[in-house]
């Protein structure tokens, strides 16, 4: 086990395409780091450079203190789980798992006992003599995991290991991967485009976009304090609602956000947390609000200056919550970041000129809201997010605690956040 350090790592392909730029990651011993981002953001390339499957064009990668740039994969002592599992089709489950050990010329007894142990952990004991083609998708995935586990490597590298499984199995295997990693305490780099996997598995999550690291932080920090529109829009499902708004300071010194024709009151506490907001008074900003930070005002109770009204165009009861799709009279935020996210989201159509925005609110199931009703929405204005409309960065003070890049494995720290 060891720490993995990427410093100023870049990848430029021979045709001049840049896949990764100046990537700095410091993954401490035993940490579970998730690399997440839309397809083509360079996360897999970064992982493959650590694995030794791609040349490192710039910077250096160190595993356990050794710089491995020129070291072939087999000497790096890492194990990889592939998206396709990449099992050896001609070998039994037993030989698949033991392949790496056999190549390292371990004694037969040792191989057998290690394979048996891994099979036990993964529930493959009765399938050891079967060939991969006779296994289900979930079992193949386990074999791929087993192949990594028995090696007892310095680091696990996982390249979207769950994306070929159906939804139910994915949840199950996700939990299992988390459990195994915790039990073994092996440093792990996990690549995924699924933000749920990222949030549930990672000690820290690194969000990448077009080869550039956007933010690296524990999942809850990432969720609560995204550094820019891209991270804000990418993390969270349903996504954060983003609309154009203006910051205003009233005569009484009270601070308001004008969303379309409606106004939301913001407490002084927010200002002290985000001193830079002061500079945006009278200017346009992009305001973000998470679906769960809104509630049906008839359920939450009316709060002066903290409600919006908007017609309802769709109500989706989920049992535990109700997803209300509302047509808010405010201009939708459409920036490069958001366009890219929409593209990753299956080409959702964005209309820059529209004067209304569909926002999604997560209401309590006690709501009696119906389609076409005029919804009164209570907004938790302490938890609004503010972004600069030009460059998309989050508006904080000088010391946004979320931009920290130093390792911090304590999960779910939310500095100074209270509502």
């Amino acid at each position, binding site marked *: 086990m060891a720490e993995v350090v990427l410093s100023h790592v870049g990848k430029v392909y021979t045709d001049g395409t840049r896949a990764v730029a100046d990537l700095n990651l410091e993954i401490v011993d035993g940490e579970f780091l998730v690399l997440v981002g839309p397809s083509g953001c360079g996360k897999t390339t970064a992982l493959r450079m650590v694995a030794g*499957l791609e040349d490192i064009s710039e910077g250096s990668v160190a595993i356990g203190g050794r710089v491995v740039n020129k070291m072939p994969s087999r000497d790096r002592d890492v194990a*990889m789980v592939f998206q396709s599992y990449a099992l050896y089709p001609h070998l039994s489950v037993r030989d698949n798992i033991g392949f790496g050990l056999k*190549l390292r010329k371990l004694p037969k007894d040792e191989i057998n006992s290690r394979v048996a142990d891994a099979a036990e952990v993964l529930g493959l004991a009765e399938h050891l003599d079967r060939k991969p083609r006779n296994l289900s998708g979930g079992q193949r995935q386990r074999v791929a995991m087993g192949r990594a586990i028995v090696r007892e490597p310095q680091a696990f590298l996982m390249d979207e290991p769950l994306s070929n499984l159906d939804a139910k199995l994915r949840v199950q295997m996700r939990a299992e991967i988390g459990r195994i990693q915790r039990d073994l305490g092996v440093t792990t780099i996990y690549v995924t485009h699924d933000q749920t996997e990222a949030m549930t598995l990672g000690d820290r999550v690194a969000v990448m976009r077009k080869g550039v690291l956007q933010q690296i932080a524990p999942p809850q920090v990432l969720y609560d304090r995204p550094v820019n529109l891209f991270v804000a829009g990418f993390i969270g499902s349903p996504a954060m609602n983003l609309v154009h708004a203006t910051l205003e300071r009233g005569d009484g010194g009270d601070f308001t956000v004008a969303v379309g024709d409606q106004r939301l009151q913001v407490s002084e506490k927010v200002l002290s947390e985000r001193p830079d907001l002061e500079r945006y008074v009278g200017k346009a900003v992009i305001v973000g609000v998470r679906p769960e930070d809104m509630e049906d005002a008839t359920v939450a109770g009316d709060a002066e200056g903290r409600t919006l009204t908007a017609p309802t165009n769709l109500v989706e009861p989920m049992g535990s919550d109700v997803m209300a799709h509302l047509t808010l009279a405010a201009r939708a935020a459409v920036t490069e970041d958001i366009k890219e996210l929409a593209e990753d989201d299956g080409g959702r159509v964005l209309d820059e000129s529209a004067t209304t925005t569909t926002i999604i609110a997560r209401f309590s199931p006690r709501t009696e809201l119906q389609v076409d009703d005029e919804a009164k929405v209570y907004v938790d204005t302490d938890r609004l997010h503010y972004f600069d409309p030009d460059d998309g960065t989050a508006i904080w003070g000088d010391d946004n605690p979320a931009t920290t890049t130093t390792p911090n494995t304590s999960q779910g720290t939310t500095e100074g956040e209270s509502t």
Partner: protein
Amino acid sequence: MQHGRYPFIVGFLILPLTLYGVFVISPFVQAFHYSLTDWSGVSPDLSYVGLQNFQTLMRDGLFLQALRNNALLLLGLPAITVMLALFFAFLLNVGGAKGKAGVQGIRGNGFYKLAFFLPQVLSVPVIAVIWAVIFDPTSDGLANSALGWVGLGSFGWLADPNLALYSVLWVLIWGSVGFYLVLFNAAMSSIPRDIFEAALIDGAGRFSTFVRVTMPLLWDTIQTSWVYLAILSLDVYALVAVMTAGPGGPDNSTQVISLQIAQNGFQFGRAGYASAMGVVLFFLTLIIATVMLRLTRRERIEY
């Protein structure tokens, strides 16, 4: 079953099946028939001699010599060709340059593929003529002058009874490697790249990747190639007929069964006897192909 489907199928099959029957099956049957006669090949008269032709064969020194030569080709050609073709295909595909990360072929892979495949587009007589010139036994010959430069002296090649058959074998290999290289190359590129990468990370070097991953995954293709080459090495008529002295010389050192059949059937007027040889060759081919397929049978591989 829809109405009129059988006439439709039969309609399509009747012509090819008739041609196959007339030009492939019937000559085989006729050969079996003639092998029991003393037919000269031209005269309308023939009489049955039972198995006498086959008894003569067993004592025919020339035929036995041809059989031995074919056996040597059978041992050498498939093994060497398959090994070389596999080796080159592996280099072209995954043998990659040292110091480079990941799984990739060597540089200029397209050029090598073309270069190796080139002999395949030449007809056998052309190959035979080219190599007959290269193997010129005088010290001015191409092969000999090349060896002369590096101080290895000159050889008789096709003129040396001890070397002639090996020279033939060499030309056969030279002519076949390219095709099998392209075949293996195609088969290899259908193996998911991930599997090679997994092997790399599991700690496999080039050699163990080749032996433990590539070979088993290509087994079906290798097996088929092996049988094909075995059948080829029992034939080799055209090359020997054009390239060697005599042909079949010197001193019958390159004599092969197919050459014997042609000589007996068309030159010596012993068509019945030649047919008997053909029958023996037929069974030999059948047995060897069956045995090879049996011995090398493995479980089918699916990705």
